[in-house]
């Protein structure tokens, strides 16, 4: 690029002149400031992980998953009932919320006429629910499911409550996956005489499965880490046994962690850190699986 307005202090030849003739201290200061903003989160993340690993180190052994919680003897305490409780609750959460969420997404994307007021209401409602505080879902679980429907504070109540909590996330992610399937596929299928459901079932859904799986895994990983609503649903007490059914009482990992944090002795503090590390590893594996799925099966149309 040949610069017609050459002046003293111009940048080296070959660099575009349009970037400005002068060195601007404000510009680079601003850039560094922005980078500092971004690094706040990253530094925080590193500090958090380093601290948790450091605190958890003395307690990272098989006691964590072989033993049950104990108030009197922290050196023998473990989180087995919480681990099994989490598996029970999350399995049923997945069973409840994934089919419902995916079906709702299919309805909104493939069937709903967006001009109708009730469809717009459903849409607005989902957007709002996605931002309702999780503790409010705890109130729903306590007031409606546990008391009025008399389900008690059981695995079933917790799984239903968490399903409703992550349902908007599943719906929003599934809708995006469905929307990414190009219209031409649907038109071709319909033109060949397929009905609307045949088109959805045989063309749209297979193409949208990877995206929906990614979104579903992320939604479930949110449910695994959620403590606030479950605290209200009877998971707080020290539970010395694994759940045996839907009507069993239970505890889950985040609530067990909260319990140990509330204890004053330092042994419980290390135990809490070890359980946090276990929880973070589970979430990391799930997130990695989601990213792998997205990259492995992502289709460019």
């Amino acid at each position, binding site marked *: 690029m040949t610069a017609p307005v050459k002046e003293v202090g111009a940048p080296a030849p070959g660099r575009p002149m349009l970037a400005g003739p002068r060195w601007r201290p404000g510009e680079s200061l601003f850039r560094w400031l922005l980078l500092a903003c971004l690094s*706040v989160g990253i530094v925080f993340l590193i500090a*958090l992980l380093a601290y948790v690993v450091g605190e958890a180190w003395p307690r990272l052994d098989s006691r964590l998953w072989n033993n049950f919680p104990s108030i009197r003897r922290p050196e023998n305490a473990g989180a087995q009932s919480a681990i099994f409780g989490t598996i029970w609750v999350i399995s049923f959460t997945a069973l409840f919320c994934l089919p419902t*969420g995916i079906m709702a997404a299919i309805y909104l994307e493939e*069937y709903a006429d967006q001009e109708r007021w009730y469809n717009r*209401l459903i849409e607005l409602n989902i*957007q709002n629910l996605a931002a309702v505080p999780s503790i409010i879902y705890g109130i729903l679980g306590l007031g409606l499911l546990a008391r009025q429907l008399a389900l008690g504070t059981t695995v079933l109540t917790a799984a239903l409550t968490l399903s409703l909590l992550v349902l908007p996330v599943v719906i929003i992610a599934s809708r995006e996956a469905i929307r990414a399937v190009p219209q031409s596929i649907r038109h071709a299928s319909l033109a060949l005489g397929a009905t609307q459901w045949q088109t959805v079932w045989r063309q749209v859904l297979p193409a949208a499965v990877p995206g929906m799986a990614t979104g579903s895994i992320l939604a479930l990983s949110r449910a695994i*880490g959620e403590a606030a609503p479950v605290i209200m649903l009877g998971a707080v007490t020290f539970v010395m046994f694994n759940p045996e059914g839907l009507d069993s009482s239970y505890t889950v990992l985040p609530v067990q962690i909260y319990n140990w*944090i509330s204890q004053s002795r330092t042994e419980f503090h290390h135990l809490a850190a070890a359980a946090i590390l276990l929880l973070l590893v589970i979430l990391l594996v799930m*997130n990695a699986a989601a990213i792998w799925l997205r990259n492995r099966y992502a289709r460019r149309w």
Partner: protein
Amino acid sequence: MSTSAPKSVAGTPNRSLRRTRPRYGEAVIKGLLMAAALVSVATTVGIVISLIPPAVDFFRQVSISEFLTGTDWTPLFSDKKFGVLPLVAATFVITGIALLIAVPVGLGAAIYLSEYARPRVRQLLKPSLEVLAGIPTVVYGFFALAFITPQLQDILPEAWALEVRSGLAAGLVMGVMIVPTIASLTEDALSAVPHALREGAFALGSGKRTVSVRVVVPAALSGIVAACVLGISRAVGETMIVLIAAGVSTGLRFNPFMEMETMTAFIARAASGDVPVDSIEYNTIFAVGALLFLATFVMNLIAIRLVRKYREVYE
């Protein structure tokens, strides 16, 4: 296909393309799918009907003016006072501290990612924000109580008397927790600003900073405000961090160095204790819950409206 179709075509040439036979299976499927979508509406209805009866019971015994203007909050003690202001004040103070961190940091990070970062850098940095968003809040609470508070007690002058549980530690950590929410929504809004606006400003001789601050940010303002409102909504509704790191209080206080209890923390603490059903203590949970739901509901609707507005302008 049935043989009746060609016949009817011959008989009525102007026949529409609609199918000749009703397909009951298709209608059933559509009904099922719609029922699944209605579960979300049922959730909202469920929240409202689980809140209203106990809240109405509560306000039969406690006047609304006492609830909204009282400055003492001791519903779980024997001398019961039901002034919700201490909880509201604590929520305001902690949310304020969180926003002081989250709004500038989130905005800066979003501007960097959208306007400055090269694609490779963005691919590397953006997931780290997503990881931050995926960490359970109980972990944030643990970090605030066990790491941030001792650090702050070392740094701050002793005369400020930072307590072991304080609004400050909870607010700071909550601020970092909201950064991903604000950053990712703001980045969406910034990316939606058409390139022509930026090129026009560059052509007039503006530097990159001027373009970012004076052109792109104002153009995306409604989206940015929506991001901040959603951030506030998350801060107000966050429970575990404040439950673990902010403590308990009964009186009205604004000093962030002291213990304070937010609306969410009270709900969680009261509901996890042994509260007899249908007692005034039990109903208190739902009265505070109704206030919290109303507050976040209004903020969510504002945010949703604002997001729609900027989408309409540029798409």
